[in-house]
């Protein structure tokens, strides 16, 4: 046994540890949020949460580590624009395209297809004119297609 293992924490180290911990936990003050992230915060984060983990138990789908999968199957690219939260948001076509691209890259870059092309404002503007009324059946069908892609 090393006698150092029995050495109790000396008071100065305890004080430094407390102050350092407080500084780290307190976060960055005055940090300006990027405009695209601010749009996500104001239009999406209330339900999908700050890290995109959502709340699947209450019907809020998780974006984190998953949402990019939709781009691998036919209809998935359109689906992400036609869901009510996107199509009926207060964002302009251009800003909605920016937010969708940001969400895909931030929360699901590992799932993005290699040939991913970002959404554009005209594409988003065209798709959001036909918002989904019945979302669940479309989602179920897309997930079924995804299973086929995952296990051919």
């Amino acid at each position, binding site marked *: *046994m090393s*006698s150092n293992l*029995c*050495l*109790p*924490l*000396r*008071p100065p180290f*305890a*004080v430094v*540890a*407390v102050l350092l*911990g*407080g500084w780290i*936990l*307190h*976060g*960055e*003050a*005055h*940090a*300006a*949020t990027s*405009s695209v*992230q*601010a749009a996500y*915060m*104001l*239009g999406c*984060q*209330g*339900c999908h*949460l*700050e890290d995109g983990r959502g*709340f699947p*138990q*209450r019907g*809020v789908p998780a974006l984190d580590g998953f949402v990019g999968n939709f781009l691998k199957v036919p209809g998935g690219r359109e689906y992400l624009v036609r869901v009510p*939260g996107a199509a009926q*948001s207060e964002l302009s076509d251009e800003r909605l395209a920016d937010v969708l691209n940001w969400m895909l890259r931030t929360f699901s870059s590992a799932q993005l297809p290699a040939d991913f092309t970002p959404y554009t404002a005209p594409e988003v503007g065209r798709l959001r004119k036909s918002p989904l009324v019945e979302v669940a059946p479309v989602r179920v069908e897309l997930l079924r297609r995804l299973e086929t892609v995952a296990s051919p």
Partner: protein
Amino acid sequence: MIQKWLDTLDRWAEKATRKDARVHSRRAFLSGFGASVIGVGAVTLLPVFRGGAFAQQAGSEEGDPNSCDYWRHCAIDGYLCGCCGGTVSSCPPGTVVSDITWIGTCRNPADGRDYIISYNDCCGKSTCGRCVCQRDQGDTPIYRPQTSNDLNWCAGSQADVPYHCSLSVVIGVNE
């Protein structure tokens, strides 16, 4: 075989204990141990939002967080948690923060910047009833639920109903 192993362990423990007793006094141990206990206790008192650990600090702030006209409450509709045993950014004991919530902006008169505010509800105890505050800036009708403050967000959280009080947490700066 087992007896031999136990004897070895016994000798080793005795030797280590005697060596430690020669090097460290009981008073030094007690003082260090006491400092550690106080240090660990102090960490839990630091001003952080424990529900989601995403709270930020606004620049300079003026006013009383427990007053309805405090700048962060510009779109709130509920009881101020600071009057209910919590603070403007932390839930009272015995309640759980609703992760699902609505988010808006308020201008801080102290620096003129627009901050992004998360109006999380605290849930799990009956209605607080103190410091009711309804300001509704930017509030939309319930058919636009993303920005409606008439919803009981506790109903959509892991905490479930009942509603107790509301927070106004700074989570970003909108520029």
